[in-house]
């Protein structure tokens, strides 16, 4: 979707403000937001791609106003309501509906270390051979899906070179919407700054992106 989250190449969003000796969490609720998101994710009701899509689906003006963990909590509430783990009324009231059945959490304290260490690898075996090889010139497609995609707007319809083949990976455009993992080849693609930003761009600069095969044509 062409949302405000896809902000690569924009100007005017303000100065970068690095903070000296920044704490890991600025307030305790941020730590809770992180932990709740990971712990609730262990139910397996949504994928990482679906959670990214939930965050980018926050209306643009709100998205730009919200802090990172506010986006996380907003998306978590939406995902839990959408998948039936909680109801909107429960979130609004903070209390379980009458007669609720108490569940057993899938992620217990003893399992946290193993779960974090395992992560969620997205590499998958491929049924067919990859279409492109390292060194080949490719052109990204000019696609504008209304759903989730990981091809940023600034890099659509641009020519680059395959610099590395990552093998098969889960395809987010499908996986975010419950259409299955549909793994396909993922490539590292180098695009020169001038190709992206025009003749005034820094001649000694290039962008590297990881690009799924469905986003590419032969140049």
């Amino acid at each position, binding site marked *: 979707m062409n949302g405000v989250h896809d902000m690569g190449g*924009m100007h005017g969003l303000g100065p*970068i403000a690095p903070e000296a000796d*920044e704490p890991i969490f600025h307030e305790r609720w941020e730590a809770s*937001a992180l932990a709740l998101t990971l712990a609730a994710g262990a139910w397996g009701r949504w994928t990482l791609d679906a959670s990214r899509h939930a965050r980018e689906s926050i209306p643009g003006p709100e998205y730009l106003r919200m802090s990172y963990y506010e986006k996380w909590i907003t998306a978590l509430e939406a995902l839990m309501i959408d998948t039936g783990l909680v109801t909107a009324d429960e979130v609004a009231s903070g*209390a379980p509906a009458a007669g609720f059945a108490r569940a057993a959490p899938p992620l217990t*304290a003893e399992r946290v270390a193993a779960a974090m260490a395992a*992560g969620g690898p997205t*590499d998958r075996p491929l049924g067919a051979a990859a279409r492109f090889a390292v060194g080949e010139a490719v052109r990204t497609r000019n696609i504008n899906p209304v759903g989730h995609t990981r091809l940023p707007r600034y890099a659509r319809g641009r020519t680059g070179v395959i610099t590395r083949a990552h093998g098969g990976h889960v395809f987010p455009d499908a996986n975010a919407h419950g259409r299955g993992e549909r793994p396909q080849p993922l490539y590292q693609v180098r695009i020169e700054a001038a190709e992206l930003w025009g003749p005034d761009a820094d001649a000694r600069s290039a962008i*590297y992106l990881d690009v799924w095969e469905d986003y590419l044509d032969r140049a």
Partner: protein
Amino acid sequence: MALRVKALQSLLVEKGLVDPAALDAIIDTYEHKVGPRNGARVVARAWTDAAYLARLRQDATAAIAELGYGGRQGEHMVAVENTPETHNLVVCTLCSCYPWSVLGLPPVWYKSSPYRSRAVIDPRGVMAEFGLVVPEDVEVRVWDSTAEIRYLVIPQRPAGTEGWSEDALASLVSRDSMIGVAFAGASGAGS
């Protein structure tokens, strides 16, 4: 926000959807166990052990796992080396993808709109906002983390550190130098 999150947490605990002890364990992991010291150890090893550097180039995920680091948001790693000819900078323009397993949780500026928007169109200007000036004849490579591949910058080893121990070298490697907005050096350790 504090009240809203507290209400959600008590709802989820009461419904048995999350285990409060698991929440504490997750927070403890990212406050005390996983952080940029992990990445600094990888860099220091790469600086001192040519065979390790070769393995890091070949398969960074496996080489980093040798030191005991991996898992969530570090499942698929690529190491990018700064050289006298090339400087690397990491961003995620679409969200805030970041190599948690070696750097911990990302700082606010990395997740902010100003950094995400401008790192790809004006990397030298962005680096200058951190006080980092990369010479004009050095190529700048910006890594936009659009998939589940996570990028770790291997900064250049500072001059005058010949014969230093791995621990001493690791203390020179800041978080920012492993994102690409700083060089490794004396001011390293903290951030």
